[in-house]
């Protein structure tokens, strides 16, 4: 087989893969949307569509690493709330905003390290630890702000979240693009990324092969906490005010995007490209549904169905493929 023959086949295989399927779905959604509304393809609408969920999709990047590593972090949304509430609480007491921002990020680092300690060092299941902290961090956020809503931040802070920084792009979107590049490089092209996959595939084998499992997991949870805190602070800047129940329930949307991107909930497989496509699909789908006046609740339901179908359809396809190949082989065996 020559090289020339292999390349088209490789492209074909790519298209048959999950990412290829997602790409087709995305193109269909974009086509339908642009036929529905002429406003859809405008630059402003395209940027808006990102901005409306920018905090979630920033956290999705970190969650991809965590789930590929065969763990889960349910506490991210609570951490977003906690970081924002820390900022508001400090601001209320006269701390300058830059210092409050730094402390908000530090809270994310510490919270992530706290999760990581119980998961990586003590060895408790991450589902349980982060479930407890989903309640715990949210509780702390409520302790800080009780039932108040705090706004009135300096103008530059509100502008940071609401106005464009470079060209038409606001700061959060630029940060997201930087994080995407970082995530792609680290996960797909670095040694650390390989470790993330190897541990996700088989933790014991990774440990016996000399991978520092605890350190990798610790790093991931600290990163997850920090990025969640960053997203929470950006959310505060975009909304211009902070409440104790900010970002409540975001963890489900975030996990949905990662799983739809083809990352196995059991770890070890999936890629950042699939997740990026899933992000685009969900954002464009929600935007398209909004354009035809479908309410938020129905949108959530549709995405729930999509999540289930994303695993069910390949399973059914595989089932039929197996039955077909069995039917093909059995007669040939009996005729021998």
């Amino acid at each position, binding site marked *: 087989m020559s090289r020339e023959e292999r390349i088209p086949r490789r492209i074909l295989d790519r298209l048959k893969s999950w990412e290829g399927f997602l790409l087709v779905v995305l193109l269909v959604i974009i086509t339908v949307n642009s036929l529905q509304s002429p406003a859809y393809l405008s630059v402003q609408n395209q940027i808006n569509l990102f901005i409306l969920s920018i905090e979630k999709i920033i956290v999705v990047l970190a969650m991809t690493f965590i789930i590929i590593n065969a763990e889960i972090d349910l506490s991210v949304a609570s951490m977003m709330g906690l970081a924002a509430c820390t900022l508001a609480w400090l601001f209320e007491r006269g701390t300058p905003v830059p210092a409050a921002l730094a402390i908000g990020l530090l809270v994310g680092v510490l919270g992530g390290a706290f999760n990581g300690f*119980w998961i990586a060092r*003590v*060895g*408790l*299941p991450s*589902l*349980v*630890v982060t*479930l*407890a*902290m*989903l*309640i*715990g*961090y*949210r*509780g*702390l956020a*409520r*302790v800080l702000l*009780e039932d108040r809503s705090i706004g009135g931040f300096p103008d530059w802070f509100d502008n940071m979240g609401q106005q464009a920084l470079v060209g038409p792009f606001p700061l959060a979107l630029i940060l997201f693009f930087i994080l995407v590049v970082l995530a792609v490089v680290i996960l797909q092209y670095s040694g650390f990324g390989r470790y993330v996959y190897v541990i996700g595939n088989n933790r014991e084998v990774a440990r016996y092969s000399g991978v520092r499992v605890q350190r990798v997991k610790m790093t991931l949870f600290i990163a997850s906490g920090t990025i969640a805190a960053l997203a929470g602070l950006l959310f505060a800047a975009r909304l211009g005010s902070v409440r*104790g129940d900010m970002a409540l329930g975001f963890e*489900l949307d975030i*996990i*949905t995007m990662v*799983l739809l991107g083809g990352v196995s*909930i*059991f770890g070890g497989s999936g890629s950042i490209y699939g997740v990026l496509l899933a992000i685009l699909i969900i954002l464009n789908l929600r935007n398209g549904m909004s354009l035809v006046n479908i309410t938020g*609740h*129905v949108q*959530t*339901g549709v*995405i*729930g*169905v*999509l*999540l*289930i179908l994303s*695993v*069910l359809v390949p*399973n*059914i396809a595989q089932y039929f493929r197996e039955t077909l190949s069995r039917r093909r082989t059995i007669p040939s065996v009996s005729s021998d």
Partner: protein
Amino acid sequence: MNALIRRLRPEQIRELVLVLIILLTILFFGTQIENYYNARFFNRISTSVAIIAVVAVGQTLVVLTRNIDLSVGSIVGFTAYFVGQRLADNNEIAPLAAVLMAVGLGAAMGAFNGVLVSYGRVPAIIVTLGTLALYRTLLVEYSDAQTVLTADLPAWLLDLPRANIFSFNDLDLRVLVGGMLMVVLIFYLILRYLPFGRRLYAIGSNPEAARIAGFPSQRIVFLAFVLCGALAGLAGFMFLARFGNITVVAGLGLELASVAAVVVGGVNIFGGSGTVIGALLGAILINLLENSLIRWLAISEFWRDALLGMLILLAVAADAVIMSRVRDIWAHRALEEVEPDQYELESEGSGYVT
């Protein structure tokens, strides 16, 4: 102490520790809060435990098979609203019919989860994350932003939460609580003595081995989801009875509360071990702490969730530490039992050398 531990099964140790912690909690708050031991407090906690414990029993069945059901909160909300609305439309519906309607509706929703998990081979966390959103959406669409009002409900339903099986001084055993205890007892017996119950454990501790042993794993996991849905439906009915006013946010967050109860109750999140008694104790402990912390004057109400999260974590960490100790002791016992043989072999070996 060690001798005692060896006599007990691991679940029993877990449950004893939980009972001990619950007693210590009650004693501690008794010294902190004036007039802590009164009947109203007991009644309030027992009624709110009733609903969460029924959901937690269903959750236990599913978690035992190495799965999870995150849609229970939405099922509780949907059944509470649906049955509430039927009853508001037609006050003549018999009580038993209303309960059966709730249970049946819940079972149907559980069956949908179960089909996808066991026959569609979609991981439970994905299916139920999807149906968590889907069932809630159905509720929002179905309700059309209307609320079920207490005033429209039949009188027997409104009296139900205050109805007693018996009372002792001011200490009441409510019908709802009695029903919950029945559910726990029934499922305790099923899990302990019926083949179906034992198979849940077998599938959870080693799905591959269970398959090779010829268990109809798919059907059993499917049934676990149906039962979990049915129990969530029953809890939906109890929710309706207790609160009367049902909006679209009914039962929101119950999925996490039930998982928390199950986990604190010592049911292994990776399947194969745990009991419904443990889940009940977990639910009691969480509720007791929640309600006591509010009344504890030293802290504000807003501290409740922050402390609750830490306590769940500590309960699980303590459980892990204690269980690994117990396992050591058991391993020791196993060693002691084989020791005579080993000794013989060793002496034979040394004899051979000399």
